[in-house]
């Protein structure tokens, strides 16, 4: 009984504090005024620029990503799926991507002007002629065939393909720790997409975490990626050359808009 009364008393206090500004613990101290902030914080945009410029200087590296993404069911319930990918990169025109999940294992091998898609379990592969640079390859694979390259953002930030002048809101969300790395956390809003990035603090910023929220759906499906970097990779250039296994078969790739 005593407990019951206590609980009621606590609830009453809670209701009071919630309904009366200035009484709750969260209330701002008297005299403090929030600083005027613009929707787009210039320093946050600058941080993106700096990270993009740094990414463009990386010539040879390896990155692995662990991705959780969501699909929304008819009733708004969300399901989260897990996927992984690893890319090996040699700028300007060599890349190998391996993608694996419970749904599929796939590879993309790109060298010079040739991109090859390979599905190991089926032993099928397809080749497409593409641009002689990674950014162009990414753009063409998606535009022509609807093929998305994992971690493509890494090659677009710091280029004209990732304009920053359309961002409607940008803010510094403080610092956070991802794995063992101290990171600066930024949040952006553009159109129906909200996104957040955690980049390592310092002069050589690398993205360590990325969150994308789709506001076009009221359930707001979200994807979360953790990136692990290796800037001194040990892979050899042979990884960029696709030699089909003897029992593999070449098949076609369907253009998005065949004419």
């Amino acid at each position, binding site marked *: 009984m005593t407990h019951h009364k206590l609980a009621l008393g606590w609830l009453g206090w809670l209701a009071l504090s919630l309904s009366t500004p200035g009484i709750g613990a969260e209330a701002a101290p008297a005299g403090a005024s929030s600083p005027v902030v613009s929707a787009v914080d210039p320093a946050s945009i600058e941080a993106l620029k700096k990270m993009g410029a740094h990414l463009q200087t990386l010539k040879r590296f390896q990155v692995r990503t662990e991705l959780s993404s969501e699909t929304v069911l008819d009733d708004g319930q969300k399901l989260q799926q897990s996927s992984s*990918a690893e890319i090996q990169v040699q700028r300007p025109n060599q890349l190998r991507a391996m993608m694996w999940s419970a749904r599929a294992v796939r590879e993309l091998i790109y060298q010079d002007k040739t991109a090859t898609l390979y599905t190991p379990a089926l032993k099928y592969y397809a080749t497409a002629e593409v641009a002689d640079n990674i950014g162009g390859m990414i753009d063409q694979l998606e535009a022509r065939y609807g093929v998305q*390259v994992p971690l493509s953002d890494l090659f677009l930030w710091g280029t004209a393909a990732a304009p920053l002048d359309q961002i409607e809101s940008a803010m510094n969300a403080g610092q956070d720790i991802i794995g063992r790395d101290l990171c600066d956390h930024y949040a952006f809003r553009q159109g129906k997409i909200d996104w957040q990035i955690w980049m390592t603090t310092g002069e050589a910023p690398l993205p360590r975490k990325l969150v*994308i929220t789709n506001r076009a759906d009221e359930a707001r499906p979200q994807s979360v990626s953790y990136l692990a970097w290796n800037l001194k990779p040990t892979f050899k250039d042979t990884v960029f050359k696709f030699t089909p296994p003897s029992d593999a078969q070449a098949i076609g790739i369907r253009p998005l808009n065949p004419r």
Partner: protein
Amino acid sequence: MQKSLSKLFLAPLGALLLASFALAPVADARERGGGGRQVSHDGGPRGGGRDLQVNNSRRDVRTNNVRNTSVNNVNVNRNVNVDVDRHGGWNNNYHPVATAAAVTATVAVTAAVVGSIVRSVPPNCSPYSYNGISYQRCGSTWYQPQYVGGDVQYVVINAPY
């Protein structure tokens, strides 16, 4: 062949959507067959869990009721700065159209309408190569594998000979 293939691509969109994709678990089963998942590449990354066997036979059918607005955004710049039709991310998630059409697709598989596309072929199929082109022959029904986006799918075709 090229000519007839391009004709196939022009199959009415409705039929294509209805028949585009079979149930994802079926696709999983297909990929487990034969060569399995053990792949070795010189110097290639070793994916964790690549040798694991996935069994989705107990998955609730309600997980297929994905709404049309469910869009998988996994890359920032391709989503905010490029005005192109989204085809799902690299992570091969269940496509909204795919899952909405899943039940219909199984019917389409049975009917094997020429020009329709499925994500997997029935278990009784065997690979067949003719004039340098790869097919899957399943009784009297022929499929031609092709990449659609990053995934292999199969177009129902007329017998090649």
